[in-house]
């Protein structure tokens, strides 16, 4: 009995240690990536430098029932600093006044538009444009979900690159100028690039721009700031540096339109459509035997509102978990397959370790290790080792990410904010982390039951001046 208990503890601890080791490697790679990144000029310099050569971009903004914020979002998109871009808003069968608000606010009228059918999407009901805003096109289509709306946008775009965003997010004015850099530096190789997502809860918004950066007062929003820092500044930056990046956030990613068309666009039958698109691109390019790059750039920022109550956050986390599992299951032949190189070994290795078995083993550890120790079946060092792996190493990784942020990017405006986030990096390990694992188990359960759909994401809207 004691032997079995020790075996269970060993599995839990070794899994935790392997995950931590992977995070430590990511930290090192993230530090290297930040330390060796190309010079980051001011946006005025970038504009001057890129004005003649920047490839045209279609910004695709799918919108579903966004009547409260859509006008402000579109105004903010139209004010982006980029030499050549168009904004395509896709009204995905909203049943509120989203389309009417757009038509009224921008003086739109119904027009014809010759579009292709390169990727699958639900029928388009009409196009709306205005001579006063030649950069804006609104596509009204039947509801089909976010992936379907993005596919409709891809069909409508006439530019070599498209940028997929969430209509309710706020792109910083120079975000396109910054995220396009790999497409300028390596135009023949780059097929996709992602930027940083930051949490806007607590910030003030004025005319579709973040006018004052503040930390939120809500605990859940604060914890998610630390989580996003870990996800973007550590994991994505490192995986980008390793050329093993499998996720470009659906809220902000720039893609080579033709390559995306070649893989059939966004997939419909998954809630992880952003991750699946990147995996399909990797598979496609490797199957063709072509050299390519998928990059992550830390400087361009897209601001988004995160859930600040348990009910919505739990649904989001379960959905993310389900999305990862769906992608992993759909492309399982790539996992640990040397034919797919670092994508198969590192990218899929990470999903396997962190998303597939991670929550299962960690929850098993929470339940069994203290219990077995309490029953006298495990010696104290086993319990201490488990606690060390779970808590102290977790705290270290978060602290180290904050150190990286402060040394390299310095986007937190005040010393007090850094101190608050340092405190949160400790506190989140006691309670929040366990709760997250529980939500991820719910995602596992939904995946097993083949549950579909996104659920409802209730947004409060940005705090405006």
């Amino acid at each position, binding site marked *: 009995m004691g032997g079995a208990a020790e075996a269970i503890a060993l599995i839990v601890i070794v899994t935790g240690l392997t995950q931590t080791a992977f995070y430590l490697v990511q930290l090192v790679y993230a530090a290297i990536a930040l330390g060796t990144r190309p010079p980051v000029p001011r946006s005025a310099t970038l504009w001057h430098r890129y004005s003649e050569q920047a490839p045209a971009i279609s910004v695709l903004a799918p919108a579903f029932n966004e009547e409260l914020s859509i006008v402000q979002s579109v105004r903010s998109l139209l004010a982006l600093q980029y030499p050549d871009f168009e904004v395509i808003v896709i009204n995905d069968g909203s049943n509120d006044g989203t389309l009417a608000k757009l038509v009224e606010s921008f003086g739109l009228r119904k027009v*014809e538009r010759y579009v292709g059918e390169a990727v699958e999407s639900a029928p388009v009901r009409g196009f709306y444009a205005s001579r006063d805003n030649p950069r804006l096109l609104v596509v009204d289509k039947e509801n089909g979900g976010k992936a379907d709306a993005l596919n409709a946008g891809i069909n409508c775009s006439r530019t070599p690159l498209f940028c997929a965003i969430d209509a309710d997010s706020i792109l910083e004015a120079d975000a396109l100028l910054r995220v396009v850099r790999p497409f300028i*530096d390596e135009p023949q190789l780059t097929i996709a690039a992602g930027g940083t997502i930051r949490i806007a809860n607590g910030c003030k918004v004025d005319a579709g721009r973040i006018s004052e950066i503040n930390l939120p007062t809500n605990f859940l929003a604060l914890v998610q700031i630390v989580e996003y820092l870990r996800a973007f500044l550590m994991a994505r930056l490192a995986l980008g540096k390793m050329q093993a990046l499998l996720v470009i956030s659906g809220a902000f990613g720039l893609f080579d339109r033709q390559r995306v068309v070649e893989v059939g666009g966004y997939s419909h039958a998954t809630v992880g459509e952003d991750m699946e698109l990147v995996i399909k691109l990797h598979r496609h390019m490797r199957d063709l035997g072509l050299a390519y790059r998928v990059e992550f750039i830390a400087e361009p920022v897209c601001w988004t509102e995160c859930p600040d109550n348990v009910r919505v956050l739990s649904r989001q986390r379960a959905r993310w978990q389900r999305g990862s599992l769906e992608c992993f299951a759909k492309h399982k032949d790539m996992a640990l397959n040397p034919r797919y190189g670092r994508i198969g070994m590192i990218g899929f290795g990470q999903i396997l370790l962190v998303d597939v078995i991670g929550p299962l083993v960690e929850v098993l550890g929470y339940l069994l290790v203290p219990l077995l120790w309490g029953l006298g079946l495990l010696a104290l060092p086993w319990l201490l080792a488990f606690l060390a792996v779970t808590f102290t190493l977790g*705290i270290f990784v978060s602290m180290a990410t904050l150190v990286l942020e*402060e040394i390299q990017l310095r986007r937190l405006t005040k010393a007090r904010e*850094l101190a608050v986030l340092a405190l949160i990096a400790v506190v989140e390990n006691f309670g929040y982390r366990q709760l997250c694992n529980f939500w991820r188990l719910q995602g596992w359960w939904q995946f097993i039951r083949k549950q579909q759909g996104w659920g409802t994401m209730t947004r409060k809207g940005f705090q405006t001046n």
Partner: protein
Amino acid sequence: MLCLAGAFMLSLLIVARIFAERASHNTEHVRKRLVPVLLGGDANVDRVFGLELRVATRLTLELAEFTRGTDQVELLAVADALGVPGFLHKRSRSRTAQKRLTAIEALALFDNYTDVVEYALNDTNPHVRLGAALALSARSDAPDLSELVRKLRIGEVENSLLLVSLMSDVAERDPSSVRALLTDASLPAAAKVAAVDALADSGYTHAPLLAEIAANPSGDPELQARVFRALGRTGHPGSAHVIEAGLANKDWRIRAAAAEATGQIALRRFADQLGGLLSDDHWSVRFRAGEALLRLGEPGAAVMRRAAAGSEALASRAATILLAEKAAS
């Protein structure tokens, strides 16, 4: 132990940030004082040091972006008197590539530092090398193109789209050196395409050479299509025979680019070929063909109207919608 190390490091950074926040108030004060000095146009000012010099340097870079002509000359004269170029020179030897690049680009604004900028063409960082080359070429001080190709390792390490800007600047004063690149067998196709784009932007004169390049495929349809688009930008009708062949190319990317070029050069005699492409299997080709027809004026519009009324479904749809789009615009 690891945790304590992380916490200690973070504490240090928080303390450093507190001091930095205090310093930023001073910086703001110095900025407010220096802006009118820099924009005042009076170069009879004393040198500044320390924080003032750093702020003056940053301000010079910011203001130089928004000034031109005599205003910029006066600004740079004041900056020179304040000691900004000396500070930039020191920064051009920084260990941080970002600082070196900023310093080099800014030094290129001052007349007496061309040799420092030229030296940066040997920098270990490719971005600094390219920045130096662009800065030099913008003021017509760039060395020979062959030397730039060698130092920047164009086509091997350097493939940036900014090479087109660089070559365009060079082509303005020495087009023959850019033309020479096109016949250099050792140069990768991607680098040649940058030269093609640069020559196309400089107009009519180089069209026959570009037509020759377009007629000889590089092997990469993407690059070949770029050559056709460049050919279109020259607006030269002498390349009609190459474009006609491009319209029938088996690769859709080349057909689409050739159609685009046909419209740009206004080759009305190819209206029927473009009309045929309205029923191409590939949407991009149909779209570019329709767009080109609409640029051809009445002969193109007539082909579009015939296609719209015709029985070929793909062509009819393309022509009908594009005509409607045109009418609404």
